[in-house]
């Protein structure tokens, strides 16, 4: 069996790096506008590495919200990663705990979905390192650039690139959907539940994704385990 390592990981992560480019650039720009120094903005991207939470923190900082509440909100927005790393644990090769503790830092919505949709049954640590390194470099590098130049992309490009991360998710989902009704149902049910949360406003985005993902995964497991004995 061909084992895919670090270089293959870099390649698989390149589309994430492209998707992060406009998002990180804008984060650097907004951080500057909020009053963060380049060191502060860069440190946030280096140590937190979580897009949505970083954006929200900027609006909370400029609204003068208490630091404890900003941190609590970050926790709530990012708690969905718990579900993702639990799922990823089933997919990754066995390795030293310190290595797993290290690459755990690099698990985002995007790196998780790229790693978890790989065709091989066990993903190498070196492959994960490649995916994460190129994504992380883009995130940190373009945060710095956004703060430095203090301007965003031309409007038409900014608008066009805002689709990038969603196109990535579509590009990961569709190949698994082909001829696989279970995958289609999983995505569809989660999409419907999440849309209900979105339009009713019952749950904030972080919770909505967590609850709709878990609900869909459990519902489909209940249906398929009833349908045929394993």
């Amino acid at each position, binding site marked *: 069996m061909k084992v895919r390592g670090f270089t293959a990981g870099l390649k698989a992560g390149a*589309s994430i790096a492209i*998707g992060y480019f406009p998002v990180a650039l804008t984060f650097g720009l907004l951080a500057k506008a909020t009053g963060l120094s380049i060191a*502060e903005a860069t440190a*946030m991207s280096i*140590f*937190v590495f*979580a897009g949505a939470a*970083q954006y929200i*923190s900027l609006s909370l900082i400029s609204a003068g919200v208490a*630091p404890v509440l*900003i*941190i609590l909100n*970050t*926790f709530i927005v*990012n708690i969905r990663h*718990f*579900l*993702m*790393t*639990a*799922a*990823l*644990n*089933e997919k990754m090769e066995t390795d030293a705990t310190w290595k*797993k*503790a290290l690459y755990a*830092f690099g698990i985002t919505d995007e790196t*998780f*979905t790229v790693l*978890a949709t790989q065709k091989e049954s066990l993903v190498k640590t070196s492959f994960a390192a490649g995916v994460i390194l190129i994504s992380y470099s883009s995130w940190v590098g373009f945060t710095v650039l956004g703060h430095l130049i203090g301007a965003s992309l031309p409007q*038409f*490009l900014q*608008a*066009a690139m*805002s*689709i*990038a991360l*969603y*196109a990535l998710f*579509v*590009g*990961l*989902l*569709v*190949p*698994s959907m082909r001829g696989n009704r279970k995958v289609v149902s999983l*995505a569809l*049910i*989660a999409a419907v*539940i*999440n849309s209900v949360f*979105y339009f009713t406003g019952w749950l904030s985005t972080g919770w909505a*994704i967590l609850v*709709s*993902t*878990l609900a*869909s*995964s459990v519902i489909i497991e209940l249906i*398929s*385990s009833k349908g045929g004995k394993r």
Partner: protein
Amino acid sequence: MGAWIWWVIIGMALVTYIPRAIPLTFLAGRELPPAVQNVLRNIPFAVLGALIFPAIFFVQENIWFGIIGAVAAFGIAFSGASAMVVVLGSIAVLAVFSLLIG
């Protein structure tokens, strides 16, 4: 910003890292019940559904960006293209649309 911003960054870093690290380090080498394993195996595809919908439609204030972008992404993906081609192709389609309406 004062020194407090550094405390905010440290706090954010910790509460973001903890949910990422606990399952990968504590569950390592532990055999979970088969039903739990099956549910965990379902999660990647369910989370993709939730990450895409409905957010893909609201990437810009003008909803047509989302609609055209979604159609382009799914169309390119169903043609059998790699994720990278889906990303670049969708950006290209929306760049053209953006220039046309601009």
